[in-house]
């Protein structure tokens, strides 16, 4: 049985309370209608529940989330998956800026374009490896100060530029795969471009298979593109910055 909530005109506090209380009483599935800018949906929830969102959710969707699966049938805004620990967020549209800020686990799959500063300071620890995949383009500062995790950018809508300026500025961990060429002019000083190894192809294939199923992209077509792999030159690029 799923819990259906009409969120028209509802503030985020009662909305999120209804969800949390229902989870305590054992509910596992939610469908939220007429969502319009309510913030913090899914915030800090530890249980493996499923939340479907119809409408545009507010900022910090899935902040501190630790387990749920959230499906958004619209565009979403800024700060999605902020410090998220586990779970999945699937957005059938475009997203705003600073998504995956400090994300430390789980998956964030976006069908369309992403804004500025995707995956800023995303990190990983042992088995906790966050993954962000965007099917369209991304703005400036893609992977800024990235410390861990995996980011994949596909450019499936053919829009140009595929990725903005300052790609991977300050990056010191993790890996990015961009389906296409990145102009060296747009690369941060802290990253280098590599060809994909067989292991890389296997790794992205495992995530992209699932990704393509969610959004109906053709897996073979996605994989047939030529990817650029970006890794940090150093795990400690600023070690000598203030030591003189």
């Amino acid at each position, binding site marked *: 049985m799923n819990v259906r909530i009409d969120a028209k005109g509802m503030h985020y506090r009662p909305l999120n309370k209804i969800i949390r209380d229902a989870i305590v009483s054992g509910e596992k599935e939610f469908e939220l209608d007429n969502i*319009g800018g309510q913030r913090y949906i899914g915030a800090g929830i530890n249980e493996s529940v499923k939340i479907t969102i119809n409408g545009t959710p507010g900022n910090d969707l899935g902040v501190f989330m630790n387990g749920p699966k959230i499906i958004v049938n619209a565009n979403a805004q800024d700060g999605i998956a902020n410090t998220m620990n586990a779970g999945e967020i699937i957005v059938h549209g475009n997203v*705003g800026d600073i998504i995956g800020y400090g994300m430390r686990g789980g998956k964030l799959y976006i069908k369309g374009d992403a804004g*500025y500063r995707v995956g800023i300071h995303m990190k990983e620890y042992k088995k906790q490896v966050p993954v962000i995949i965007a099917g369209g383009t991304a703005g400036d*500062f893609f992977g800024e100060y990235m410390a861990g995790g995996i980011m994949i950018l596909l450019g499936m809508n053919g829009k140009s530029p595929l990725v903005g300026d300052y790609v991977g500025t300050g990056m010191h961990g993790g890996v990015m795969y961009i389906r296409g060429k990145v102009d060296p002019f747009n690369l941060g000083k802290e990253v280098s471009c590599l060809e994909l190894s067989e292991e890389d192809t296997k790794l992205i294939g495992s995530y992209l298979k699932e990704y393509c199923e969610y959004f109906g992209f053709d897996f073979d077509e996605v994989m047939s593109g030529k990817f650029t792999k970006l890794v940090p030159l150093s795990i400690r690029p600023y070690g000598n910055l203030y030591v003189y």
Partner: protein
Amino acid sequence: MKCDGIPSGCAISGMMSEQGRRIDGRIIIQSIACMHDRSNGLGGGFAAYGIYPKRKDMYAFHMMYDNMEAKEATEEFFKDYFNVDKDEPIPTQRENGISNPPILWRYFLEVPESKLEFLTERDYVTNTVMKINSEIEGSFVASSGKNMGAFKGVGYPEDIGRFYKLEDYSAYIWTAHGRFPTNTPGWWGGAHPFTLLDWSVVHNGEISSYGINKRYLEMFGYKLELRTDTEVIAYLIDLLVRRHKLPIDKAVMCLASPFWKDIDRMEPEQKKTATMLRQVYGSTLLNGPFSIIIGHSNGMIGLNDRIKLRPMTAARKDDMLYMASEESAIREIAPDLDEVWSPKAGTAVIGTLNGEVE
């Protein structure tokens, strides 16, 4: 009313009918209210264009007075400087928690021919605005344009909108602001929009180049009396577009100039223009995080800082152009859009009036 410091607003929304259709104020209140949590109750305001069709050729001065002395002094001043066609209190209703408003009065003014021997009418009006703000204690001009007005104060924007009874006004451009001041307490004169003539600015962010911009503006006779960073944007756009006659797309290149490294890669003609603008107008560059919506009689301009440190979404539906800090604030009033996009950093979204105002 006056206080020190630099404010930093946090929710903006704007809507415009490029065909000049007029829409009542309830819609814009609904949009800005959707972003309630971006404000903290210390400032809200609106700019509306096309609201005084019966007196559209007169300067509509919206005034804020601390006390009756300020009102009397200003009215004496108006009698000397203008022909006053009509004056009346700005209608308000007090049931919604807005406290301690100043005296709010509006005047419809004409400039006597005899005053314009040595300067243009708009320079003359600009000078009077500067004079009132700097010389009459407790008297502030909230707006001074033709067929437009600013409605602002301390409170949440949706409360300010109802306080001013915006449902009774129809405009082809509405902009709105919800304030979350981080560097100063809120005060009535410090609420957005900031205006001069028909220019209005709502702003989310903070202008760290305020000092440079202020000194530059002072050389052209502007007096920055509202002690707020956003004020410089209103005067800079007036200087660039009205006085120096730059087209709007070039003026925004002065406010959010391309980086030198990007100018180096431009095509020769474009490179020449961009270099020239940066060299001549280096002091008009706005530094720091901002997203702004500028209103004027012929359109609406949305602009972000050059590395997009504040949010902005734009959308179109038929003849309507929308801009807001969040997409949800646009969907709230226009669920089905023809087009919705995130403007790039430092790239203006420009709406232009191409019909007759109703």
